[in-house]
């Protein structure tokens, strides 16, 4: 091991610490801090999910259960702090929520990790429905329709963090995100973490290197519940309110999409996915009512065309960068980008126009898109939208072919170098 590679992880961590400390000074608007806080929560949640999907090969449809229950517990603990029953500083609440996530992970994991594959996935869905149903029954704990709310400006103050300003909340979330991400990374480097990968690759063989695959799955599941509980607690601190939605199937689906979009094959994949997904949903929802539709389409595109996620796309470019051949791909990429943009503009016009017309509350058919006012019911708008869609689709197909050609060229050049 060279000196450089030995200190690289340390440098990465220190760099992240500095970046996290500087971020709220660079972007100090309320909007930016809100975005950053949600990114932090999403990153912890997505990383905890990838302990199952990417590292242990367990597809869960109910990961929000551990997130949500951790969040509810944190809020109940927060209210206990406010009432003076619990002498705990608010920034340490994630410990409480994490332990709840761990406890629920142990109980539900005990049952569900006996199986893997489809059966595991179905059991996870069953438990998700079960807990969602409980939220209607156990109203004291889940708070019914209104959920549970609290006041984070209470209890003993830690490091001058009164938790009043958004920035205080940011620092708490950033610190927990860093610690959780580090711990989750270190777990991948332990015998349990390695055996989780082994169980993912080949449970049959795992039994013949001394391990019970069920125990490996169970331990990873419980630990993953712990970190999901931490994420849920951060959510509770950030919003000071939590409703039954937080244990619901929608949140379970979001975290699956985050992990998948970022790519489950690399540790940092879900971090990328959480950033992309959260940023996209916040930004898109500010501009359009149909933001979920766009997210869904984006997810499908990733699943079909980039099954290893964004991190997978980045990873295949690493050898190209190292061989200094990136310039041979860029022209084709630029072309694909332009044609893709034409397709996208057409699609947006069609989607937004139909969405506008389908709104029962719409008084007029006039709408505005990108600062341009037009009549959504006029044939010209549709002709433009559908035309751009068709032309873009046709051109994109052609340009993707040239991307393939550029790749073939780069591959032969790299192969030639390897042989030389």
């Amino acid at each position: 091991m060279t000196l450089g590679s030995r200190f690289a992880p340390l440098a990465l961590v220190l760099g992240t610490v500095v970046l996290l400390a500087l971020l709220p000074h660079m972007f100090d608007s309320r909007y930016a801090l809100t975005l950053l806080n949600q990114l932090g929560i999403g990153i912890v949640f997505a990383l905890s999910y990838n302990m199952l999907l990417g590292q242990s090969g367990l597809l869960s449809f109910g990961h929000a259960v551990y997130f949500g229950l951790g969040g509810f517990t944190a809020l109940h603990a927060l209210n206990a702090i406010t009432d003076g029953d619990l002498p705990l500083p608010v920034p340490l609440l994630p410990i409480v929520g994490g332990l709840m996530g761990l406890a629920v992970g142990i109980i539900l994991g005990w049952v569900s990790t006996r199986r893997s594959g489809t059966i595991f996935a179905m059991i996870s869905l069953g438990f998700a429905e079960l807990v969602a149903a409980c939220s209607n029954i156990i109203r004291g704990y889940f708070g019914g329709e209104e959920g549970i709310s609290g006041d984070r400006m209470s209890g003993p103050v830690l490091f001058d963090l009164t938790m009043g300003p958004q920035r205080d909340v940011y620092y708490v979330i950033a610190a927990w995100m860093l610690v959780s991400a580090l711990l989750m990374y270190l777990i991948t480097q332990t015998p349990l973490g390695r055996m989780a990968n082994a169980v993912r690759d080949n449970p049959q063989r795992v039994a013949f290197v001394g391990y019970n695959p069920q125990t490996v799955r169970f331990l990873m599941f419980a630990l993953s519940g712990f970190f999901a509980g931490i994420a849920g607690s951060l959510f509770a601190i950030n919003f000071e309110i939590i409703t039954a939605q937080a244990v619901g199937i929608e949140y379970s689906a979001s975290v699956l999409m985050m992990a998948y979009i970022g790519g489950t094959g690399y540790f940092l994949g879900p971090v990328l996915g959480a950033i992309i997904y959260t940023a996209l949903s916040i930004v898109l929802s500010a501009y359009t009512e149909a933001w979920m539709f766009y997210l869904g389409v984006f997810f499908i595109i990733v699943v079909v065309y980039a099954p290893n996620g964004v991190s997978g796309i980045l990873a295949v470019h690493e050898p190209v960068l190292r061989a200094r051949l990136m310039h041979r791909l860029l022209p084709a990429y630029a072309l694909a980008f332009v044609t893709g943009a034409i397709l996208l503009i057409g699609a947006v016009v069609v989607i937004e126009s139909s969405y506008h017309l389908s709104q029962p509350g719409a008084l007029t058919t006039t709408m505005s898109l990108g600062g341009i006012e037009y009549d959504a019911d006029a044939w010209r708008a549709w002709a433009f939208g559908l035309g751009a869609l068709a032309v873009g689709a046709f051109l994109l197909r052609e340009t993707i072919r040239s991307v393939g050609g550029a790749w073939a060229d780069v591959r032969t050049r790299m192969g030639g170098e390897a042989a030389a």
Partner: protein
Amino acid sequence: MSATPAISLQDVEKSFGSTRIIQGATLDVLDGERHAIIGPNGAGKSTLFHLISGHLVPTSGRIELRGRDITGMAPYRINRLGLSRSFQITTLFHRMSVVENIRCALYYPLGYRYSFWRLCPRLKDVHERADEILERLGLTGRRDVMAGMLSYAEQRALEIGLTVAGGADVILLDEPTAGMSRSETARAVDLIRALTENKTLVMVEHDMSVVFELADRVSVLLYGEVIATGTPNEIKSSRQVQEAYLGVEVA
């Protein structure tokens, strides 16, 4: 060498529904011997392996490992008692590097078990042992390659390496040379001989030259029954075996 057989099957039966695959197999594998199990396709050789290794539970009968009853025990428990096996279809951790594959076979036997507080890069004993085993397998040059990217013969070698790495002293190999070329087979035979020294070896094998070269004793399985056990020469000259299995028109 002890007098207790390494593996002892007593009247083992296994049925799937109404089909009896193994019908009363009785067999002793002696401590320290190399024992080959031969028989035509469908004779139940792989099923027998699955029964011994705990993947399948026998319908009736008793299986002992060094005198200890292991009938119906979970595979990982049998493995911890010192029995390891390979698979007919290569079963590696294909998305991990070659060296990490071997390390995975070492964590448990070296006492690290389910630890999530110890960092693998610091486990010196695991690293040294793994590199040593790679050296013996002739895979040192491929240590950082993903297991799924190895050539077929290399994968089979790694398969054997994974089986013996943990230090089990009873080794079951399921068709270790299947699908190999003549020269690859010769190398595999040398490898098996070297790696199973002072251990008990049971192997299912189709290649008779491999069987007669490696095995101290041979058992013939036919329709789920052990019809004969003996030295390679005894088996070769046994009329019963020739008629039933080798298909030689007896002169």
